[in-house]
């Protein structure tokens, strides 16, 4: 159950690529904290699971990094990596964007799914990658999340989804919107079988993802300070007459408002996942 394994096995190149598209400013040895401005020794930062040791800012993680801090070493087996985007609507510039992102990240989409173990408990896991169009949900994303639930259902395994998304993907129009209904229906069918669904909300978990399968988890854990809500900040700003109250829609605020079960520092998440999986992994003696 070591949480430190990820740093030793992570390739330097992958780490750099991740940081480039996330929020660190890599200059080799040193990394600047985007929140407090502190210049951090990169090795120390990585050892600290990419959490600023001055202000506790939780750096965004690319999907490989997230998997490394979350699942047992070497246990992840990817599913459905062959799914890729089709620009059905012939939306302007969409093809070019996708090609560029795929080349830069090595990803076909902002949702990476597969099977793994966590503390020895087998799970089906989905991890969002913000580098890929802000982790937005289009047809591929929705299909992967749906297959994730279906895999869990077929194998009677719990599901864990790590969210990091700006919402539905505009470039696929109504097809993207319908992924909300599709993934929510999949979560419903999965839940009816009495299987556990855990969600982790990282910064940001927004809009079409937040307002569909993400909020339907049995247990929701949030990383500190993550922005969580329906309306993007631009839309929210237009809709509000008053100024936003401090902490508005951040993890801690969402817990106070009953919408997440707990806010946990990155280092404490895996231990809690293991306890939850112990509680929910195998069927109980009484059932519906």
């Amino acid at each position, binding site marked *: 159950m070591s949480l430190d394994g990820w740093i030793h096995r992570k390739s330097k190149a992958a780490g750099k690529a991740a940081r480039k598209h996330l929020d660190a400013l890599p200059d080799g040895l040193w990394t600047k904290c985007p929140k407090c401005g502190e210049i951090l020794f990169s090795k120390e930062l990585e050892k600290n699971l990419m959490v600023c040791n001055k202000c506790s800012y939780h750096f965004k993680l690319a999907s490989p990094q997230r998997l490394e801090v979350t699942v047992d070493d070497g246990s992840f*087996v*990817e*599913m*459905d*990596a*062959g*799914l*890729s*985007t*089709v620009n*059905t*609507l012939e*939306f*302007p*510039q969409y093809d070019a964007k996708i090609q560029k992102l795929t080349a830069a990240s090595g990803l076909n989409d902002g949702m990476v799914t597969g099977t793994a173990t966590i503390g020895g408990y087998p799970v089906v896991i989905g991890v969002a990658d913000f580098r890929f169009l802000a982790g937005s949900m289009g047809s*591929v994303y*929705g*299909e992967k999340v*749906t297959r994730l639930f279906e895999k869990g259902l077929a194998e009677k395994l719990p599901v864990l989804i790590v969210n990091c998304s700006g919402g*539905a993907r*505009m470039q*696929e*129009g*109504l*097809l*993207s*919107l*319908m*992924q*909300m*209904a*599709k993934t*929510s*229906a*999949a*979560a*419903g*069918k999965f839940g*009816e079988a009495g299987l556990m669904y855990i969600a982790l909300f990282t910064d940001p978990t927004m809009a*079409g993802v937040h*307002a*569909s*399968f*993400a*909020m*339907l988890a049995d247990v929701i854990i949030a990383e500190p300070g993550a922005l969580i*809500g*329906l*309306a*993007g900040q*631009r*839309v*929210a700003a237009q*809709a*509000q007459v008053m100024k*936003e*109250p401090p902490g*508005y829609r951040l993890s801690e605020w969402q817990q106070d*408002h009953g*919408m997440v079960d707990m806010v946990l520092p990155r280092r404490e998440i895996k231990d809690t996942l293991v306890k939850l999986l112990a509680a929910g992994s195998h069927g109980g003696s009484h059932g519906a």
Partner: protein
Amino acid sequence: MALSVLDFEKPIAELDANIAELKRISEEEGIDRSADIEELERHRDDLIAQIFANLTPWDKTLLARHPNRPYSLDYIRTIFDDFVELHGDRLFADDNAIVGGWAFLDGNPVMVIGNQKGRDLKERQFRNFGSSKPEGYRKALRLMHMAEKFGRPIITLVDTPAADCSFGAEERGISEAIARNMMEMSLLKVPVIVAVLGEGGSGGALAIAVGDRILMQENAVYSVIPPEGCAAILSEFQRDPARAPDAAAALKITAEHALEHKLIDEIIPEPVGGAHRNYEGAAKFVKEAISRHLAELEKVSTKKLVEHRYNKFRQMGVYAETQCENG
């Protein structure tokens, strides 16, 4: 309320005015101008047909938002009998942006639920411009579960610009409410027919729009984001809300496109010149479609109904797939 006139409707409105004037004159002066009137009316109808055959997605957006377009309660009054409106979510409040209750369709009890916009300024505020807060969606869910309890079909009428996303709505979990409704609707053990009658505004619409049949009026729009919002966000449109017409085209928000992508089942026709020119006529088309689909669904077993509904949404989406070594 006076008839509002969209830009592209102006030639029609002018002819309407001419016809009205001619009628007034012929009546006041006792002169028979019926031939002229008939010709003008024919001309007006040709013009309407011509204009409506070439509507852009943005034109349809404006039609879907037309201030004179019939709203859910207009349809409910026309299509159903003995509507008994039910209020409240039993949790926090009654949301006037969603209406719902028991009603009778051709003598059979159904639960009808719809987004509700307001006509004049005061009513618009009362209805929060048709944008629901969590309590609206939770009221809708309460009523849907009541219908399920009694084995009655559910009809939802969709017409909302978007869900409300004010402080209060976020505080009370607007995302949770939308998500839960979609999930619960996918599991309902009674027939659910959805009619998109105006604006199908993103998650705010989808929260009452998961059903066995999704019908959509020919001038309604259904979109993941309002065209203005899309234009304002994407560099493809220079982040300029004024380029909403281009975004509307790119987003493919019309009923034809939705049908083409198998996201809806059928387009409900509107009377000549749009629903706002003829409430009764519009309602007649909607009623016919709902009744016909309901009759079909009544024959399906509960198990198959829920299974088909799942599969219907399961199939939505377009992607490519290649086999991978790690698949």
